[in-house]
């Protein structure tokens, strides 16, 4: 199952909490987290790396918006 977390506009540490909750869900095979702040982008990528050991893929979708994706 593909799963999308929309963490845009969320203040610290909500994007990381939402990401971690999704990473704990074993039914999710691929995760995409949408963020709109550089801080959230760094924090979410770091959370994915520390929880899964995998480097997430980061795509800028619009000016100042990113999609951080990882296959689980």
């Amino acid at each position, binding site marked *: *199952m*593909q*799963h*999308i*977390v*929309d*963490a*845009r*506009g*969320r*203040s*610290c*540490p*909500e994007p*990381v*909490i*939402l990401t*971690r*909750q*999704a990473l704990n869900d074993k039914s*999710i095979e691929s995760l995409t987290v949408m963020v*709109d*702040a*550089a*801080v959230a982008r*760094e924090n979410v990528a*770091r*959370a994915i790396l*520390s929880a899964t050991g995998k480097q997430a893929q980061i795509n800028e979708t619009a000016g*100042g918006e990113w999609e951080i994706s990882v296959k689980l």
Partner: protein
Amino acid sequence: MSGERKKMLGAGLLVGALGVLLVVLGNPKNMGVCVVCFLRDIGGALGLHRAAIVQNLRMEVPGFILGSFLAAVLFGEFKSRGGSNPILRFFMGAMVSITALVFLGCPLRMVLRLAAGDLNAVVGLIGFACGIAVGIYFLKRGFTLGRSYPQHKVAGAVGPAFAIFLVVLAVAAPAFIFRSGSGPGSMAAPLLYSLGAGLLIGAVAQRTRLCMVGGIRDMIMFKDSHLLLGFIAIFVVALIGNLLAGSFNLGFADQPVAHTNHFYNFLGMLATGLGAALLGGCPLRQLILAGEGDSDAMVTVMGLIVGAATAHNFGLAASPAGVPVNGQIANWVILALFVLIGFTAHETRKTTATKSKK
């Protein structure tokens, strides 16, 4: 050590060193940098409260906002945004100020007090960590102040514009600006040093996301020591600086701008930690976010100023003599309100913030 961690360490070293240096240059003892104290002094200078000993247009504060603004613009991170429960943030900011003034210092000053041997700050730190732990409970339960949205650039410019306004007032020094003749408010490093130190700290805090609340929060919640490293670096450098400057004095009694009521040192920082955790960052972080264009954070800063002024107008703020009864009552009421907000302002995550596709 990764590049990010080195940067964080560097930021901590800088803040710790400047924290001690500003005292040598004239700031009150153990108050090289204190965001809540300085916002309180600014409120006094603007005439929002009439506590004659704590009125001063502290230039570190506009420095933080403008340093963050410049760094954010330079690195393409300035972004006008807002709309995440501003009125709640305003009052939560005000309440954080009041409880921080029961302890006598924001989380940053707590670390600087620790580094000068003030053991009352150990009690405060325990309370602070407990408060953050309670905040984490609410965050895990789904606490949120709601999402923010992109806003017109003008909204994001309010923080930096307000900072420039304060600098102009300090330079022009019109007669309606108050300035303490005695007490902590009369002690200040020269204007350019205060502003310069503020700009530097603001810029590095913007780049590294340095946050006192975040340090303990991420450690408890995610076992992530990234932000905590900055916290520890501030402590170590300020400790060394205080030892060198001869201003290290270990003990509970007779500490500068502090009291020895253990219970309210604990409870004051407990409420401060909880409130700041729910707000997503310590008072310093709110100033940095305000510089980056976050108008919700700027609303919180306004709340911090009004709360600090109220603390003095209503006789809630502590002094070296202790915590007034009004302040003790306010501390309990605020703690109860934070718990109430923590329980009520939440969402059921699965349905609102996330969605799945087969």
